């Protein structure tokens, strides 16, 4: 057997002539494998070029994730695929390895965030519904840092703010969180303009700071004069002004919410846009929020002898119809061995509200000494505090400051830590007292009347009956005298006839005298 190394071509061309010599044309056939190699190399190069970095993301759970199925999406564009899902080294979380596309390399920076998009029913509504069918996917929010990073820790819940959302964040400080939750809406003129993105306890535990995000373009309505309040649920207030019910929206009914507006008082003050991260107080309700901020607080104590039922901490203090402060504390004031128990009501008075109209100037410059002078002169003129009933139905009461010129003259004593403001017995109480005295008086009167009646019964009635008997006999006699056939009657008739005749004679005389007056002298002719 010839096992020589002659090529097949040389065999055919030398030993078995084919008629066609080896030509350039026949070399063309090698274009086919060359093309194939080119295509394969092209594909390989493309694959290598497309292959991006491999990253790992840690999630608390791999619920809904599948190897080679779960994608990484950014703005709904696929930029990677989960290639392995394994428990983390400490077995506490799940480590997802993801092969990223080349184009996504710039997104993988230190502060990029990853989270799993699943169907979720949250405060703001239902999200991720499409993943019910397509399965969960991992979403990315690229960070702004430039430091490349490949080992991420995934978020438990989707972030409420992702980069690219324009708007600003603000901090609200509240006494309590109320019914707010992350995702709760922020309203401006009842339009949802943002949401609560987080909350935290102050380090000292005395307040809660709530972080909100207000979307552009509404964020420019947050000004230095903005007031924020809880718009949570139904705000039913039963106060001395009656029943008030306020609902911001059905969503806020369920998840709470924050509303803000710009204080109308600040119209003349230049309204500057608030800087991002500005802090604002979060008030409990709209009314609170819109109150003129009371910078100056003067406390007074009021001593009432009467019951303070219906008066609560927060009840208004009213100066001739003008809310001037509120009740801040109610105490028992037991003096001298409990014999004399009075109610000590502490009120916070906002003297600014009582100041003159040029609020912006005089109120601020008003020193406490001038305030004392004002109060002193008012007290001398009869300023007294009085408990009044605001609402007969509910029994709510308030403290009224008013002038009682007839009140006993007193002086303010500013030496006390909390000065005492003189009080006047409550209007209703005094009315009650008066009524009682009236009733007592009436009672006495009735007693006297009773005695009188008894007296009359005992002494007057018997005499009266005797008198009546006498009277009756008198009448009988009179009847007898006046009867038509009585002699007296006949005599009287005769007499009257005589009198008639006499009258006729006199008339004749008068006639005669009228006609002939001289007859008086001459006599009848």
């Amino acid at each position: 057997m010839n096992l020589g190394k002659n090529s097949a071509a040389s065999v055919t061309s030398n030993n078995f002539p084919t008629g066609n010599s080896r030509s350039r044309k026949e070399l063309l056939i090698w274009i086919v494998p060359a093309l194939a190699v080119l295509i394969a190399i092209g594909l390989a190069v493309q694959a290598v070029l497309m292959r991006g970095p491999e990253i790992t993301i840690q999630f608390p759970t791999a619920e809904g994730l599948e190897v080679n199925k779960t994608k990484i999406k950014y703005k709904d564009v696929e930029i990677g695929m989960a290639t392995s899902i394994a428990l983390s080294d400490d077995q506490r979380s799940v480590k997802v390895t993801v092969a990223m596309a080349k184009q996504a390399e710039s997104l993988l920076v230190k502060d990029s965030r990853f989270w799993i998009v699943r169907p979720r029913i949250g405060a703001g509504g239902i999200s991720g519904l499409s993943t019910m069918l397509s399965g969960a996917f991992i979403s990315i929010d690229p960070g702004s840092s430039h430091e490349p990073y490949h080992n991420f820790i995934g978020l438990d819940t989707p972030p409420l703010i992702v980069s690219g959302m324009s708007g600003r964040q603000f901090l609200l400080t509240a006494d309590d969180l109320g019914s707010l939750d992350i995702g709760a809406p922020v309203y401006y003129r009842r339009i949802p303009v943002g949401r609560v993105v987080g909350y935290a306890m102050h380090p000292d535990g005395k307040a809660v700071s709530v972080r909100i995000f207000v979307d552009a373009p509404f964020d420019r309505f947050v000004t230095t004069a903005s007031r924020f309040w809880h718009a949570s649920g139904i705000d039913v207030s039963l106060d001395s002004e009656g029943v008030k019910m306020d609902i911001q929206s059905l969503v806020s009914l369920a998840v709470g919410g924050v509303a803000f507006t710009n204080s109308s008082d600040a119209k003349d003050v230049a309204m500057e846009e608030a800087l991002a991260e500005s802090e604002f107080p979060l008030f409990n309700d709209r009314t609170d929020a819109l109150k003129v901020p009371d910078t100056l607080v003067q406390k007074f104590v009021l001593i009432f002898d009467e019951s303070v039922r219906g008066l609560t901490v927060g009840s208004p203090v009213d100066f001739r119809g003008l809310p001037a402060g509120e009740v801040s504390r109610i105490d028992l004031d037991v003096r001298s061995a409990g014999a004399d128990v009075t109610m000590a009501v502490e009120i916070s008075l906002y003297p600014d509200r009582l100041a003159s109209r040029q609020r912006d100037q005089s109120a601020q410059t008003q020193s406490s000494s001038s305030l004392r002078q004002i109060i002193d002169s008012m007290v001398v003129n009869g300023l007294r505090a009085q408990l009044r009933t605001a609402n007969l139905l509910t029994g709510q009461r308030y403290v009224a400051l008013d002038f009682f010129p007839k009140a006993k003259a007193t002086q303010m004593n500013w030496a006390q830590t909390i000065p005492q403001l003189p009080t006047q017995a409550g209007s209703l109480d005094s009315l009650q007292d008066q009524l009682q005295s009236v009733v007592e008086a009436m009672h006495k009167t009735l007693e006297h009347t009773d005695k009188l009646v008894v007296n009359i019964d005992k002494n007057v009635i018997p005499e009266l009956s005797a008198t009546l008997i006498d009277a009756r006999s008198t009448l009988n006699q009179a009847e007898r005298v006046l009867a038509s056939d009585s002699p007296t009657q006949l005599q009287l008739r005769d007499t009257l006839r005589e009198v008639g005749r006499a009258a006729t004679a006199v008339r004749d005389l008068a006639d005669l005298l009228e006609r002939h007056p001289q007859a008086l002298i001459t006599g009848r002719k």
Partner: protein
Amino acid sequence: MSGLQAIRTGTATCLTCGMLGSPIPKPVCKRCGSSLHFRKPNNIQRTWAYLIAAYVLYLPANLLPITITRSIFGTQHDTIMSGVVYLWHSGSWAISLIVFIASVVVPLLKLFSLTLLVISVQRRWCGEVMRRAKLYRILEAIGRWSMLDVYVVTILVALVRAESLATISPGSGVLAFAAVVILSMLAAMAFDPRLIWDPLDETQPKENVK
């Protein structure tokens, strides 16, 4: 091997009409006008060219997706092997095996056996002639069946057109796969099986050869 070779008589068989004729001086069949050669010209070289191309494209054919299924459940890229694996896991072992054999094993075997044949011819092996001939016949016979995958993909693409619900589009793997199949068929066609027996005659003393 006994028997007279046409080439030794200076004649060649026309592959079209079967008439014996001399390709010299003009390599044209006198009866039908087809080109007439003692052996297919350049056949080893051409077979090699097609084979190498087929080998090269075999890789992308198996690595690239052959179908891209877009449905409301998302987009899925399927390669031949992922389909096989999916069928295997879903319990359809028989179908999985069929697909695996028809789409992965057979094309590869075809390429290998053709390579073997070409090498054997080049090295002028004399043994196992009958087996090699049989191998060539099998090769020719199963060649067309390798296109099964391409047909399936074509039918799927045409059938599944529920727009937003689900659409299947062919992936670039299908092109590579079809190219592999076609190239291996071309290689088999370019190969001249008569070369298998040529070395047998050469071992005998040469006579009457021009």
